[in-house]
């Protein structure tokens, strides 16, 4: 039985048939044309069923809606069903497509995978160049040393002030050894702080003109402990691309955003700082640092500190200055790069240096204002988690600084030696000097590089070997580790010392000239 109002919209029995056909049509649509045969067989049954359902549905829904008018439109029974259908279709469309359920791996499958897995070996195949051993010294690494029983002139030790073999220093070390033994047997926090450490820190701070300093037990660990102590994730660091591995490791461990600028190029630094200053709206919360070396050991260049300080003040950055090779060398009294350029020491935020070069001892220090130094005592990992510097090395450092303060003339000798060496090496064929005229690391690079780093190194090593074997002069080429990211060219480094005599310098220039002429 179809109610009257339905009759009015649906119409007569012809419309009835149309309505059933509509339902039938839907069935056909849903099952697809291929199944139409089956459908036809069941057609009659379905027609009956559909009609019955529609009658029931219309009776159930239309009774209350008998006179419902929504928005001026009569709400008819079939409209409700159609709306429900559309809702169902929309609902199905929003469901994700069918995915097979994830089955975890069974124990046997895991066993098979573990059996199949073949690890790479711990080390790559050993090549011939890996088997090369460096020459063994049989005496102190002073300006003259003994290799394989022969006496050679040593230009491979960064003994800039000639303090190796200095009697005063050795005496203070002996006294220290007899009193304290060799090691300090503990980290600084747990009875590893010996009074010589505190004396050494005060002495260095007094020499540099800063309030305080902090001692580290190894030169290279200084910089890669200081950088992560101050730079955290999210900070910005602008660094020269020629820095050595210690700095690179510190930058990696700090997880900050690192931006490199071209080696010792102030225009590149300025444009990098400009770009960063404009891109950053959160500038107040983010710490910004510039990291440079005073004297780059990968190229012998000296950083122009006055330009860097000017840029730092303009763009509000802090400077971390790595002075391993310039402490005790640059400046009138050896106080480093700040003295050379006449920059007041308070403008440089953090200075680090390894003491294994000019001071002829081991370890490192970091200095700056009181806040900087205090912060490191608890948060610098190389200071807190490592045993402290052996006390005899700390007393050697104090003795070396005293010597430097009392004898500033040793710097004049050093500068004279560098100048002589420059003159001697100026016309060596195939090699050109690329370091700064004030730098005690005289860096010679190949005029015409072979194109590959490996071949360059081979050639340079051959030259160094021949110079050692034939002329008894010990020079070395730069070393590159596989982990080093620096891309500067390799070369020969000649370390000049104040302990070298004029004849030593002449010897090395002549020897290099001879061997280079033959090989290049």
């Amino acid at each position, binding site marked *: 039985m179809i109610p009257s109002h339905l009759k009015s919209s649906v119409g007569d029995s012809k419309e009835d048939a149309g309505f059933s056909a509509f339902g039938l049509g839907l069935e056909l649509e849903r099952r697809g044309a291929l199944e139409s045969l089956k459908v036809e067989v069941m057609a009659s049954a379905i027609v009956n069923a559909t009609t019955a359902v529609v009658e029931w549905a219309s009776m159930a829904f239309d009774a209350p809606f008998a006179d419902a008018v929504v928005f001026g439109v009569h709400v008819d029974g079939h409209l409700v069903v159609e709306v429900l259908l559309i809702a169902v279709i929309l609902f199905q469309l929003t469901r994700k497509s069918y995915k097979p359920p994830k089955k975890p791996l069974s124990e046997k499958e*895991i066993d098979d995978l573990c059996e199949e897995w073949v690890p790479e070996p711990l080390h790559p195949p050993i090549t011939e160049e890996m088997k090369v051993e460096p020459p063994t010294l049989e005496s102190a*690494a002073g300006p003259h040393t003994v290799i394989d029983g022969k006496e050679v002139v040593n230009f491979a030790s960064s003994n800039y002030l000639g303090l190796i073999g200095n009697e005063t220093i050795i005496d203070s070390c002996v006294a220290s050894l007899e009193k304290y*033994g060799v090691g300090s047997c503990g980290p600084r926090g747990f009875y590893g702080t010996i009074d010589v450490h505190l004396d050494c820190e005060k002495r260095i701070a007094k020499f540099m003109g800063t309030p305080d300093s902090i001692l580290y037990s190894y030169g290279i660990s200084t910089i890669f402990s200081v950088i992560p102590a101050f730079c955290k994730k999210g900070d910005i660091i602008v660094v020269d691309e020629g820095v050595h591995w210690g700095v690179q490791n510190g930058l990696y461990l700090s997880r900050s955003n690192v931006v490199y600028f071209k080696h010792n190029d102030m225009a590149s630094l300025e444009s990098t700082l400009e770009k960063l200053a404009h891109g950053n709206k959160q500038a107040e919360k983010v710490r910004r640092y510039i990291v440079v070396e005073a004297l780059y050991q990968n190229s012998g260049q000296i950083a122009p500190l006055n330009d860097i300080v000017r840029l730092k003040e303009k763009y509000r950055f802090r400077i971390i200055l790595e002075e391993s090779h310039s402490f005790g060398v640059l400046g009138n009294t050896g106080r480093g790069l700040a003295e050379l350029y006449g920059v007041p020491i308070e403008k440089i935020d953090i200075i680090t240096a390894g003491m294994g070069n000019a001071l002829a001892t081991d370890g490192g220090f970091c200095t700056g204002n009181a806040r900087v130094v205090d912060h490191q005592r608890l948060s610098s990992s190389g200071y807190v988690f490592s045993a402290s510097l052996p006390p005899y090395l700390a007393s050697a450092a104090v003795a070396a600084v005293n010597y430097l303060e009392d004898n500033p003339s040793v710097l004049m000798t050093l500068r004279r030696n560098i100048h002589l060496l420059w003159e001697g090496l100026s016309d060596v064929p195939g090699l050109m000097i690329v370091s700064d005229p004030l730098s005690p690391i005289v860096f010679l690079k190949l005029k015409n590089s072979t194109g590959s780093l490996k071949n360059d190194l081979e050639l340079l090593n051959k030259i160094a070997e021949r110079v050692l074997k034939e002329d008894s002069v010990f020079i070395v080429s730069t070393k590159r580790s596989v982990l080093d990211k620096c891309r500067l060219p390799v070369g020969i480094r000649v370390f000049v010392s104040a302990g070298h005599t004029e004849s030593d310098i002449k010897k090395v220039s002549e020897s290099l000239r001879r061997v280079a002429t033959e090989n290049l």
Partner: protein
Amino acid sequence: MVRLPYVTALTTLFSYGLLFAFGQLRDFFRRIIDWFKSSSKDLKGYAPICLGLEDFYTRRLYLRIQDCFSRPIASAPDAWFDVVERYSKDNNKTLHRTAKTSQCLNLGSYNYLGFAAADEYCTPRVIKSLKKYSPSTCSIRVDGGTTDLHNELELLVARFVGKPAAITFGMGYVTNSAIIPVLIGKGGLIISDSLNHNSIVNGARGSGAAVRVFQHNNAAHLEEVLREQIAEGQPRTHRPWKKIIVIVEGIYSMEGELCQLPEIIAVCKKYKVYTYLDEAHSIGAVGKSGKGVCELLGVDPADVDLMMGTFTKSFGSCGGYIAASKEIVQYLKHACPAHLYATSMSPPAVQQVISAIKVILGEDGSSRGAQKLAQIRENSNFFRSELKKMGFEVLGDNDSPVMPIMLYNPAKIPAFSRECLRHNVAVVTVAFPATPLLLARARICISAAQSREDLVKGLEVISKVGDLVGIKYFPAEPPKHGNQAHKKVE
């Protein structure tokens, strides 16, 4: 294993909460006072070096008890040493040295075999080598920094440890940080014990490899982690891992426990992963002839791929070494940044290690080495059993010279430390962040240089102070009965 009584946990949490609340209150007042004072123009535009919360712990908790740490000494760190007295005028914010010292019993330095002070065999040789080679070589190992002393040391260390070859560095911390990145990089996996030292964590982070942690000393959990990781492969790409290295330590310095080496090695061999053993505290200190945990636990050194150790603790010098197969050592000499860029080890320190190893091996012609090894074993076992009998909660295994005594409460840390110092016993107390927050402890390091009388004196003082401070968490054993009944009191 640490058994933390509930009441103690509650009181510890309450103490830290109180300290935290007071710290925040003081910070609040400090901010108000600073707001009135104008900040200097120089710092305008610069973000502060330390944001407020980063050094909250330092400023408000650590500075209160700063006098318990970094105590300077004025003599060699032998069995008895001179601790410099310090005073403070501004409630421990800054400490000033005085010229006065007090002689104290040293229970804190890492002087396991007693080589810390001048030794009759080692010191004359060290002084001779100092006069010959100077305090430093001023060059890197591959340039002019290799002397015949360095070569001798490497051969000797390899022989001592039981591996074919060895390479030495000037600092133990740098050894870990610079070796791990050379051996493994991106695409590799490092599985390290959850309580590994900071240098290993830094090395693992610096290598770029993925790092997973397994439960401390739990070989079963290590196996689970290994199976899961090998089956899954690298995250997201599911490619197989290039190589896997498992890093464990011989003796864990904050727990005093020995590593469960045989089980862990068995698991690693089964799954073809490489092992790296850091023997910083155990080389020279444990084992019948001082050769470390491998000797003590009966593991063949050939089963461990890389053995690392330091010379600071048992040999009284400085520096670290890696002992491995000839090929690995050759590759490390070619590629390791610490070998190629860092100053070589100081020659007198090298000579000290050579002499110390010769004494331990008995090659100096006397039996002092064997005596020292027997002494430290006796001392450690005696001290540990006595402490346990008194009712302290002591961690660690037998034969290990490191024994932590649990303190828990933050107030007991300075109390224990200062009281002991008043009675002329110097102890080391460790708190957060070197240990978990609730588990503060005092750590005793036994040395072969201490005699039985020294230990008895130390025990007396610790017992007295322990009663005063209230850290005897277990019932003391009555001296007549010998049974060990450990029941929780609280």
